[in-house]
């Protein structure tokens, strides 16, 4: 990966940038890095660090960039996260009248983080429609349900089957008042979201000039999680394991294909090979081993292989405790992925997966949020002694980054301990 060129990058900054990137890439390739890399993913913690409200962090691009930069310069992570895309989302969410989140000023208070609304966005009897024509289902059903800006598109004509004079005549449907209104709203929203994207690119270039490569830019989702989180809702999906098994499996297989296409296109657009994939529904406690091997893993494995074949470095974040899944998720080509673990015992993960993937994580959220700096120091030392120094290609991070409530001295302790114990 090359550093973007809009900001001036000094030779020293370039050397730092290259060294940081190489450290992470060495881990991915299962080679010994020159020292244990550190990652930094903070969302609303930055508000605490910078002394502003969560709401300001979501809306004020300049303040958010300044605070994020200050944090990166203080902690000097090797693998920082793309702050603007993850947090400064208020204007973008408003622009499309997004309905799947509540955020400060839109359902939560100014000092609360955004929270996802688990709902049934696709009904159980709509599998056939989605399976037959995903794009049509998106245009006419799904998009108007999840964002107000798309309301009206459900009046578009059904496109497959239109040709010759029928195709010509169908264009008049775009003149319907609700369709016209949707298109006008969409163009206006696109301007806002384009500006947000430009702020993101600006921040990425600014940090590259100071020697910091982003650890990822594009994100994706596993097929099962996509369907559970964004379509069927948690309980709807769980019932589907029994009530709609065959359609569910067909949908998961199909989703693996379109998620790979979408993710590779995103990675290419951003010019960054790492795709971050937060995983919600794999934990040991959520389904049986047999269900995991039937419903969860096959489509995700297909996706991982598709991404790897497309030159992508997938970085799934296995949330909660996935200890019982380790043997199953080992079944991928070696040296191609970063597996980020939240509550899975990292020593156990290293024992099972150390020769297959780089590891990322996993200082406990409760320890970071409520513990003392010396306890954080001890937790880092534990990971260095038992994973990194034993040959584990570990990228040190919080279990899911830095919890919002973490005292600043605990974050300082985490980064200081990384340098103290692992170079």
């Amino acid at each position, binding site marked *: 990966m090359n550093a973007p060129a809009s900001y001036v990058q000094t030779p020293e900054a370039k050397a730092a940038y290259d060294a940081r990137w190489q450290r992470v890439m060495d881990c991915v390739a299962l080679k010994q890095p020159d020292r244990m890399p550190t990652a930094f993913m903070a969302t609303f913690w930055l508000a605490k660090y910078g002394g502003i409200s969560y709401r300001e962090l979501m809306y004020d691009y300049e303040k958010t960039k300044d605070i994020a930069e200050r944090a990166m310069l203080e902690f000097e992570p090797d693998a920082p996260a793309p702050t603007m895309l993850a947090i400064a989302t208020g204007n973008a969410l408003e622009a499309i009248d997004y309905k799947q989140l509540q955020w400060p000023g839109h359902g*939560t208070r100014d000092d609360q983080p955004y929270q996802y*609304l688990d709902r049934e966005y696709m009904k159980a009897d709509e599998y056939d429609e989605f399976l037959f024509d995903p794009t049509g289902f998106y245009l006419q059903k799904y998009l108007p349900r999840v964002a107000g800006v798309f309301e009206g598109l459900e009046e578009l004509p059904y496109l497959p089957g239109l040709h010759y004079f029928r195709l010509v005549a169908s264009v008049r449907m775009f003149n319907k008042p609700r369709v016209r209104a949707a298109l006008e709203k969409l163009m206006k929203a696109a301007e806002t979201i384009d500006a947000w994207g430009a702020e993101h690119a600006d921040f990425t270039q600014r940090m590259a000039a100071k020697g910091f490569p982003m650890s990822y830019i594009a994100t994706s989702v596993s097929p099962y999680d996509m369907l559970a989180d964004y379509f069927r809702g948690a309980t709807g999906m*769980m019932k589907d394991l029994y009530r709609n098994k065959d359609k569910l499996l067909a949908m998961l297989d199909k989703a693996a294909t379109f998620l790979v296409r979408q993710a590779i296109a995103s990675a290419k657009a951003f010019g960054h090979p790492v795709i971050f994939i937060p995983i919600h529904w794999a934990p040991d*406690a959520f389904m*049986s081993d047999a269900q995991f091997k039937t419903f969860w893993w096959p489509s995700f494995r297909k996706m991982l292989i598709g991404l790897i074949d497309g030159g992508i470095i997938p970085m799934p974040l296995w949330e909660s405790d996935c200890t019982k899944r380790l043997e199953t998720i080992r079944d991928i080509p070696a040296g191609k992925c970063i597996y980020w673990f939240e509550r899975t015992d990292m020593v156990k993960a290293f024992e099972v997966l150390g020769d297959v993937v780089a590891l990322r994580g996993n200082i406990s959220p409760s320890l970071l949020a*409520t513990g003392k700096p010396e306890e954080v120091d001890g937790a880092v030392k534990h990971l260095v002694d038992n994973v990194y120094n034993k040959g584990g290609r570990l990228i040190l991070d919080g279990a899911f980054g830095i919890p919002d*409530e973490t005292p600043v001295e605990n974050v300082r302790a985490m980064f200081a301990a990384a340098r103290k114990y692992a170079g």
Partner: protein
Amino acid sequence: MTEQEQNLVNWLADMNEDDAFALAKKMLLEEGANPLRVLELCRNAMDIVGKRFEKGEYFLPELVLAGEMLENIGAIAKPLIKQAPGEEPKKLAKVLIGTVHGDLHDIGKNIVTFMLDINGFEVKDIGIDVPVKTFINEISAYKPDVVGLSGFLTLAFDSMKETIEAIQDAGLRDKLKIMIGGGQVDETVRNYTGADAFGTNAVDAVSLCKTWMGVAA
């Protein structure tokens, strides 16, 4: 138990929803079965579901489907009940449960509520994003034996701590046990918040309540 009754229990416990529902419907609407008896069979099946969950054979999908099967059969059975409500079995204890302020998550809380209910507890669920003051008012009025505080986000650590401190300040702490639960909850959080115990799943919650109430777990 008749063969038909045994079938209903087995089909419910084995997640054979279609056959179980069709049979319950037939028993209730065509054969005039006692609705209280059908509901008792449902509870027997739920006992089996709970035990399979404890043994690691069943997971969340089975609890969710079991809850829905019970609800669907209940919707047919309950309007048919002619006896006085006094015949309902006595509840083991009262549990008040809610998601602490700032947190909007409810799936875990709902599953805990369901599991406590089928295990014989009277449960009052006071919802999500519950302000401290609401907890205090509800505890004063409902007089629960156990309070369950739920939270998925790390912000819930402080919300739980504030809620428990307020329960203490209101002079209510000694009269009840407090359990906390949620994705990020562990012993560190229990200690930080001052709760009596924490749990990571619905079976933990049932075991804690049974232990506290002196019922064999």
